[in-house]
């Protein structure tokens, strides 16, 4: 009898293999690094961060060193100049020879005041990244605090706070941002503050929705029964569980802040000279776009790439940390 029946092939080896129990962060990194685009984007972001930190040190120039005798020099890079590109010529003339700077190299050229554009570019990346990072942090802090309180307490305060958010949401960001910057005077601090103030409603909504769900879970009930203080419940029990989605939404807000800064620069409310940001560099280059296209093209291309990289990283992080946020 038994020879007519055989057990279906059971893969004992697979069943017995212990499930690898990787810590959360290791798993996140594993998922993230499988996403090729996100890794490339991350590499690009790292490159930009390195440039922002080390660029001004290696260039040998300062971002505000005005030298009118070397104005509007086109880019010239050692080595690559032999290939016929980035060799410091504009039309057929070598502008470096013509202006008596035969031995100098300005990798990204110079602007109309003779300032080294590479150094300015690095400082610009630095300021843009700082604006993006700090305003994301602000957005996170305000959004989490608001969302936690609103979701955890519920009732009347929640209702009021939700209406408040709905009203804020109805105001277009660009209006509130431009008006606030006008009042606070243009500068890095005021841009950061405005962006932090303008963006947090999305975070607050997300945190509130998650808090509403989490406050009914067993571990929160258990803590409550044991008499844990509310603050401790909020930050020890609830907050860690929504950290990953908060990180994702904060990361997604970074390109938004950098974009808004560029917009403000374009409107004339950006970082004041001699300081530079990516947006103000593009705007300065735009003034002489037809004569010296390199002054605009280089920051514009890097700006576009940076925005792309940040968006792709945001998407990758979301897929790795919190796939439920996947929407438009």
């Amino acid at each position, binding site marked *: 009898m038994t020879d007519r029946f055989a057990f279906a092939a059971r893969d004992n080896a697979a069943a017995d293999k212990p499930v690898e129990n990787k810590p959360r962060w290791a798993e996140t990194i594993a998922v993230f690094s499988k996403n090729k685009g996100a890794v490339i984007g991350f590499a690009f972001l790292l490159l930009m961060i390195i440039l922002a930190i080390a660029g001004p040190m290696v260039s040998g120039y300062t971002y505000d060193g005005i030298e009118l005798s070397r104005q509007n020099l086109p880019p010239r890079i050692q080595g690559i100049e032999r290939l016929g590109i980035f060799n410091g010529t504009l039309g057929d003339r070598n502008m470096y020879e013509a202006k008596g700077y035969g031995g100098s190299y300005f990798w990204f050229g110079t602007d109309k005041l003779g300032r080294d554009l590479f150094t300015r570019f690095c400082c610009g990346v630095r300021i843009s990244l700082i604006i993006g990072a700090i305003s994301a942090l602000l957005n996170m802090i305000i959004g989490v605090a608001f969302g936690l309180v609103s979701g955890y307490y519920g009732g009347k305060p929640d209702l009021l706070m939700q*209406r408040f958010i*709905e*009203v804020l949401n*109805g*105001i*277009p*960001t*660009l*209006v*509130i941002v*431009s*008006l606030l910057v*006008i*009042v606070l005077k243009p500068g890095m601090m005021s841009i950061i503050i405005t962006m932090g103030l303008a963006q947090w409603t999305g975070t607050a909504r997300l945190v509130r929705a998650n808090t509403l769900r989490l406050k009914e879970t067993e571990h929160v009930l258990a803590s409550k029964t044991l008499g844990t203080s509310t603050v401790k419940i909020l930050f020890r029990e609830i907050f860690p569980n929504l950290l990953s989605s908060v990180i994702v939404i904060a990361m997604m807000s970074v*390109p938004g802040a950098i*974009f808004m800064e*560029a*917009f403000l620069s*374009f*409107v*004339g*409310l950006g970082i004041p000279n001699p300081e530079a940001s990516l947006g103000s560099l*593009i705007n300065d280059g*735009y003034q002489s*776009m*037809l004569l010296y*296209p390199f002054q*605009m*093209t280089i920051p*514009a*291309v890097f*700006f*576009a790439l940076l*925005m*792309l990289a*940040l*968006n*792709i990283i945001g998407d990758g992080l979301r897929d790795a940390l919190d796939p439920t946020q*996947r*929407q*438009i």
Partner: protein
Amino acid sequence: MLKYVIKRVIISAVTLLTIIVVLFVMLQFMPGSPFNNERLTDVQRASLEAKYGLDKPLWRQFVIYVKNILTGDFGVSYSIQANYPVSSLIANKFQISIQLGLQAGIIGILLGVALGAVSALFHNGFIDSLTTVVSMIGASVPSQVLALGLVYVAAYKLGLFPLVYKPDMPISSTALATISLAIFPMAIAARFTRNEMLEVMSSQYITFAEAKGVPRWRVICIHAMKNTLVPLITTLSPIVIGLMTGSMVIENIFSIPGIGKLFIMGITSNDYNVVLSLSFIFSAMFIGIMLVTDLLYGVIDPRIRLNGGAK
């Protein structure tokens, strides 16, 4: 439904009122308003004070301000076109901005829906990956970079389009501006349509329709499209914001005499009356559009109005 409508309308009204309060407060802080101009004679000052009620208590001033703004009296411009009423200044420039925004919005959304639908139907194919890349780029590359690139290549190097706006060539001189504005709505609509369409196509009623023998084009164009397009309304808010922000930059780049350019001129020439009035108009437009879309969405999708609009 009525409760939902009332709630939405009240929230919109409160939002608008909040904006007016903010603008009123701003007006008190803005430097260089005509009220503290040193060159004013006493008679002029008195007449201004009487007109705007500056001698009255603050709350009275606010009521007058609200009344003025709601009746379209935004005061006078003081540096772009001195003493010219802001409302007329804006009225002249409104049409071209609306035209540009509509052109870009409609073209962008139509193209985006088409792209998204095609890429969902050929899921994981070449067109799909192309759309993913295009919509990623379109959604993240700022419109000013796109516009500047287009100006440089298509208008300056190739000479296909005029460099700046010419009133006698309304189509070709707004073409580039429209393209650079349309990319963002296109990207958003494409990404959204693709994801939505994928979900719809794998739902049971589509399988049923196919099993019933409904021709494929009918399944796609009628059965699937209907449920794909309704949620597209939710993407309207980022699209409208994108168009508003983009229009300022783009009108400036292409020298299109619209309200976006006027807004920037107002900021650079410290003409705060113009800036505040336009802020009000932008906000009012945005609030109006959001109100209409929310209500429309409530009409179309009963789930929304039943749980009180919580998304």
